[in-house]
């Protein structure tokens, strides 16, 4: 870079020589030499410029690549809680737009700032050599300009930050309106959403205009200052030529140097904008890095090799998501290896929270969860999770083939295994009807499939992993009863030798369970087999009766069935 700037700066000096030689001394021999020199310098300057650009670019791109990987790694290791409290859109802009802002600063910003500074210093130095008094013009105008620009940066910086946030807000409104379009439509919410959007859009516009005002105030000053410098040079420089202090060539060189300052001056404003944007980006990225993970490996964590027996114990567990609202209040639960248990409870009783603690999505505030007699905090986190298949209420599909979705937890699964899992989940027939069979793309960018089918993909995913603990959190709510019956039959085989925890709202499903836990207010209030609980005539019995499954008809059907149909 030094070479390229240097070479470029020498050219006007040579022009000075030429003009003085041609117009004043009329020395043509010298002239040819000078012209040759300009040519060589032009080539050198270009070549060096290329090299400096490329080398700074490589450095910047490499750094950004690493930064982006680091951000992603940090993000993926965050607690589940972290994602629950943040908008997807906001996290997205951080990993994309904010990293991009830093990239711009690194790749373009560093180069132009270095090049600009060097050009400025070089020109001042060379002008100094031509004529000291003329340099004073540049310095007198330049120094206040520099301060002015710093003020500009300070004023524009916060505006950029606000703009970003406002833009995030704007996209969130769009996102929310579209995701909830059926609610918007059926409750005539269009005017509400429109006015929300219009307000946000207006605010964004106002912020943009505030920035524009700052730019309009400050940027023209830069160009005007250069113009006034030239005017000063015309007057004082012209005076100097007339009085013979400097030559016409020097005067021309001076003017040419001022011309060369236009680009780096433009850089100053450019750079300040980049700097402020990158600063805002860096601040937001810092938030990702600085939030500590609460759920993490303890020192000397035990790596689980082979299979766990699957004994699960909750000992006096207290848990709250936000630290204020209690969800589990001294929960005790004992599940033997290989037992099939069901958890039943009213809305908000804490059922899902119980199972969320087993793969350590969250850690309890008080009490311990043990598997095979060891506090789960002592296990290596990932080796613990590999022992667990978890099908949650919100079934998530990745935008890839149905095959890869099923094999998500076991990427090296054979096609036979995948088909087997799909068959168990009662999905195979459906898949075979799809245009590309197992290679059909599903998810956000693929074909739309129904809620029940999504749940079955999630079940197939869980089945394929040979885990020792299987957790099904209300996973058949969208599946019709005929399919569910088949599904249950098939699942029964898979459950062999595994500890299974099922949360369900279909009370009939509970009968198969080795044990039923009735949860209320974050505590187990009743537990036992279906018969035991019915005989107890407690809360379970009450629910069972209140549930309108008519025992008389049920009995009749079973009787008829056993007589032989």
């Amino acid at each position, binding site marked *: 870079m030094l070479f390229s700037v240097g070479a470029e700066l020498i050219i006007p000096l040579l022009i000075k020589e030429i003009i003085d030689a041609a117009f004043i001394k009329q020395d043509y021999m010298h002239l040819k030499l000078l012209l040759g020199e300009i040519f060589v310098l032009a080539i050198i300057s270009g070549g060096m410029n290329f090299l400096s*650009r490329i080398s700074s670019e490589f450095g910047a791109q490499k750094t950004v690549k690493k930064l982006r990987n680091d951000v992603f790694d940090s993000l993926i290791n965050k607690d589940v809680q972290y994602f629950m409290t943040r908008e997807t859109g906001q996290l997205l802009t951080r990993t994309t737009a904010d990293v991009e802002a830093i990239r711009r600063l690194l790749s373009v910003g560093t180069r132009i700032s270095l090049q600009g500074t060097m050009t400025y210093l070089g020109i001042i130095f060379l002008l100094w050599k031509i004529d000291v008094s003329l340099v004073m013009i540049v310095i007198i105008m330049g120094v206040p300009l520099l301060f002015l620009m710093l003020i500009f940066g300070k004023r524009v910086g916060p505006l950029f930050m606000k703009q970003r946030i406002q833009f995030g807000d704007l996209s969130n409104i769009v996102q929310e309106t579209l995701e909830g379009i059926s609610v918007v439509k059926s409750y005539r919410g269009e005017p509400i959403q429109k006015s929300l959007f219009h307000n946000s859009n207006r605010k964004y516009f106002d912020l943009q205009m505030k920035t524009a005002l700052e*730019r309009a105030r400050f940027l023209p000053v830069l160009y005007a200052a250069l113009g006034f410098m030239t*005017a000063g040079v015309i007057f004082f420089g012209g005076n100097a030529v007339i009085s013979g202090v400097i030559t016409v060539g020097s005067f021309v060189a001076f003017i040419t140097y001022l011309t060369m300052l236009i680009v780096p001056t433009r850089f100053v404003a450019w750079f300040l904008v980049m700097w402020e944007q990158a600063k805002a980006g860096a601040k937001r990225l810092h938030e990702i890095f600085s939030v500590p993970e609460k759920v993490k490996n303890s020192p000397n964590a035990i790596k689980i090799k082979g299979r766990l027996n699957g004994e699960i114990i909750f000992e006096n567990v207290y848990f709250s998501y936000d630290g204020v609202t209690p969800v589990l209040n001294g929960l005790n639960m004992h599940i033997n290896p290989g037992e099939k248990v069901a958890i039943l409870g009213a809305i908000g009783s804490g059922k899902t929270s119980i199972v969320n603690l087993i793969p350590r999505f969250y850690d309890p505030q008080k009490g311990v969860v043990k598997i095979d007699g060891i506090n789960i905090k002592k296990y290596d986190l990932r080796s613990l999770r590999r022992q667990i298949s978890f099908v949650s209420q919100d079934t*998530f599909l990745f935008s890839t083939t149905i095959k890869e979705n099923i094999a998500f*937890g076991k990427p090296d699964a054979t096609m036979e295994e995948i088909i087997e899992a799909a068959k168990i989940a009662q999905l195979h027939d459906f898949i075979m009807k799809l245009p590309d069979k197992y290679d059909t793309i599903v998810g956000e960018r693929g074909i739309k499939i129904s809620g029940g089918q999504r749940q079955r993909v999630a079940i197939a*995913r869980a089945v394929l992993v040979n885990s020792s603990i299987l957790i099904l959190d209300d996973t058949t709510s969208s599946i019709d009863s005929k399919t569910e019956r088949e599904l249950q039959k098939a699942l029964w085989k898979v459950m062999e030798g595994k500890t299974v925890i099922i949360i369900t709202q279909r009370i009939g499903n*509970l009968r198969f369970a080795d044990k039923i836990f009735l949860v209320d207010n974050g505590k187990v209030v009743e537990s036992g087999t279906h018969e035991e609980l019915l005989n107890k005539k407690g809360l379970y019995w009450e629910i069972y009766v209140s549930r309108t499954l008519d025992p008389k008809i049920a009995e009749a059907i079973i009787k008829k069935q056993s007589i032989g149909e």
Partner: protein
Amino acid sequence: MGFAQRLAGSIKKEERQYTDVELLKFFFSFIKPHRKAGIITIITLIITSILAVFTPYVLKLAIDNYIIPMKFSELWKITSIYAILILIGWIVDIGRIYLISYLGQVTVHDMRNYTFDHLTDLSMDFFENEETGKLVSILTNDIDTVAEFLRNGLTDIVTNLLRLIGIIIIMFILSPGLTLVTLLVTPFITFIFYIVRKYAREAYREIRKSVAKLTAKIAETINGITVIKVYAQEERVKKEFGEINEENYRANIKQNIIVNSVFPLIRSLSSIAILLLVGYAVWVNQGLKQPAISVGTIVAFIRYEGMLFDPILSLTMFYSLFQSAMAALERVKRITSHESSIKEDPNPLIPKEKKGKLVFDNVWFSYDKQRFVLKEINLQIDPGESVALVGHTGAGKSTIGKLILRYYDPDNGKITLDDVDLRKLPLSFLSKKVVLVPQEPFLFNNTIMYNLKYGHFEVTDEEVYHVSKEIGLDRVINKFPQKYDTIVGPRGVQLSQGEKQLLSFARALLSKPLVVVLDEATASVDPFTEYEIQKATEKILENATTIIIAHRLSTLKNVDRIIVMEEGEIVEQGKWNELIKKQGYFYDYYKAQVLSEMSGLLQLEEKNN
């Protein structure tokens, strides 16, 4: 002209619904209301261009007419003229920068509002087939691209064209010979730009593609985070991300090598152009007493030469800005010219009596105009009646619900509400009176109270408390320290599925509908709460017509009528007891379900034996 033709010609016509002219017309329709600002902007552009062209000329005059002839006493005159020109430039520049921003932002602001409004007014069938992410990106990124085009592309091209023409004219006036020499390098530069443009565009497209991939990957990771964590696939996902990131890195490097080789080349050529013009001037002046080309002219030319490359550069840059703006405009226009398939009748009718009588008169319907999902549906649902739709997946239950809500219109036959064809009803009336409670509840990231009152903010807090209590929702809400002021989080993540369903149910009850469609509305609600909901619903919706779609047949004991559907046809209807007695379709379903619910027990017995 050749340039413009090339522009138009080289844009791929395939995948294009609109011509560039149509898109530009669409674009200018948003600028039209701000005509005045546009005209003033153009005036400022013209003034700044003229000033830019003239200032080097004044410099030439200063050198040739004052400095070299040594007219010191009058030097201040020309200096003042120069300074005044700069001053005018300064003032005009302030206006220019502000106005360009204003024009860009105000246009985009209007376009955003227009697009959003149009989008929200579209009928539901549109949203059933569109990806949310894509639509969000159109409203944000695409419209931003258009703003960028206006701010940088369009104004730059106007300024630069004006400048280019001005410079060439003044250069010719000063010295035709020198002009030709100076312009000698421009064919090379244009040629370089032309060659590079193709590669740069390709590289740029690669970058765009990899950025889109990166974004999608991150979004997917965030949304599927629990699945990734529970299957301990973090390392694999990281690796996949790393690969896409590497792809992005390579694309960036490629683009940068291309772009960065151009600028130094141009700088070199620019220096060579100076060399040529100085050399030419010296050669012409050789041996002459009175130089044919003055020092002032040379200085002015060095300045003009520097100003020449900017316009050429931005003319070539304009192409890519133009192209991406056209692509973005295309997507915006595609949405905004999408017409709702469900339209309001120009002369809408409001029923005389608002009771909630629904009649299906020989209704046929298909989604794809080929396979009928509903066949010859004839059905009358009386005011206040509660009707359950029962059948396998794909029997057409949900479709009936969607037709009642007018997400779609029937292909044949008609549906009437209180004896008025749904197509004749004002849309606002229909959506006010007919409410759907879906299986997938949606909550806004706002307070519980806001969510309950959404769409009917006139409801009093007391009414909200009352309804919540009736259906057992208050128990859930009172758990939270902030009660009804609790923020539910994005998409209601702070609540469980069952809690969300309960809230969504309460919202429907509070809107006091004439007709309610419950599509598996309580599938994730526990039996105990469901029982409460049923009792409460009977009370609150006493006069409303209720259509229930449910898998759990045992919840349907108290409905007035059960309608069994099979393959788009009604095959059986009647009261619970009648249907059980009849031992037809419904009886079979029920038996299957009871057996399914018993199957665990049966298998347990088998196992024990």
